[in-house]
């Protein structure tokens, strides 16, 4: 895989993992909060 391929992979994965971790962390503060 080329260097630019690695850059795209790492940036894309990083962006998505960052978003998932942030969102899930915020939700998990009160995961089963009654609605």
């Amino acid at each position, binding site marked *: 895989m*080329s260097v630019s391929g690695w850059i795209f992979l790492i940036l894309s994965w990083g962006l998505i993992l960052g978003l998932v971790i942030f969102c899930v962390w915020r939700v998990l503060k009160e995961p089963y909060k009654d*609605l």
Partner: protein
Amino acid sequence: MREKWTSKMGIILAVAGSAIGLGNFLRFPSQAAQNGGGAFMIPYFISLLLLGIPLMWIEWAIGRYGGILGHGTAPLIFNRLWQHRAAKYFGAIGIFGPLAIFIYYTYIESWLLGYCFYSLKGTLLRLTTKEEMLGFLQRYQGVSSRDVFVYSYLFFVITFFVNFAVIYRGVKGGIEKLCNVALPLLFIFAVIITIRVLTLGAPTPSHPEWNIANGFGFLWNPDFGALTNSKVWLAAAGQIFFTLSVGIGVVITYASYLSKGDDIVLSGLTATSLNEFAEVILGGSIVIPLAFAFFGNGGAQEVARSGSFNIGFVTMPLIFSKLAYGTAFAFLWFFLLFLAGLTSSISLLEPMVAFLGDELSISRKRAVAVVGIATFALCQFPIFFISRGVIDDIDFWAGSFFLVVFALVECVLFVWVFGIETAWDEIHHGAELSVPRFYKPIIKYVTPLFLICILGFWFFQQALPTFLLKGVPRENVPYVVGTRVGLLVLFLGIGALVRKAYRRKFKELP
């Protein structure tokens, strides 16, 4: 009294379950590999930010707003947003679309259950060539012979009843309970397969260059020249659109089971991010790298071009037949796709059932029975005329074209007719996150313009040729025309029910 979700996690997993489907694992990698590799992610992320996330928030907000007024589906919610006689008929697309998709989607979903069985039985892994695998798929579909078709039909009946059993139990007891179990299982299975792929190295000793790292390179090495091609941008926008299940009407119905003070900003974003995790990280790490590692550059190119069905039902079992513990991995693969399909297909049923309950006061039990009988009859068409282009045609109209039309209508109604200030306040009721202010002009101008561009391109590039039956073999023309007449009749029938519901609720018409 309308049902409510039990927990925040419940609705997030239900919406994520609706969004995560076969497309995450089969369509995305093939689209990315064909449209510029890593460079595809530029228009993909731009579309996510400008189209996917705003539409997700709009649908959650419209749904919660409607639910408070006692409406769980688009027709009468649209009528509340825009007091015009046409509004409710535009909203009817939000019931028609999911129902029409359900008609063929359940059948494809049942293949996954069947392939789970044939993986465990060992039948699939005894097939060692592409031709044998394709031959088995055609036998399974009843296209080439009827010997396996009887079992295929049995798996369809089982899948169909599982869907209705879940819907029958309602939002809390059925959908939420299923998604609370199915989504975590789906992620666990996908992570197990991804780890196996990442640790595979170079499985073909005669070709050490056919390895997983180069397989990832095949998918991720950017071709910047592709960015000058409008088709690549359209493909990325289309992928975002389909993957998030926006423009169908399903998210509106799910969000209608929320209360006024419930958060939608964080919940919507969480469901979106889970879908992206399943698509880009898990979906992007399985099919294409595996195909490259076993078939090399040429083989991977052929796989990427061969379309989702071939990837899922021909290429993947062929690869598993070459892997150690292939039976277990094949079962995990088909079962995770079955779970992805099931959590999507139940969401396709809910709008019709909710409409009958909310607007025509039919009990859930009776509504499920009525929808069950009607859809079982309708499902027979794609099953028995699969080789006649019926599925492709329903998928184009209900699963592609009307999705964009519906999304544009809901976006314009919510942002321009309801008003951006009211819409902004509505989105922020009970919000646990604040939407950045730059999203206000994006939601008001950019998202609708983006949708108009997609609709325009599609109309000329795909809808017009499709409408004029370009590329349809002569012998299939009567079946395709018949499918369209059937879809029109279905839409008119739903339109008549919407009119009845409107009269009943508002008693304004004579």
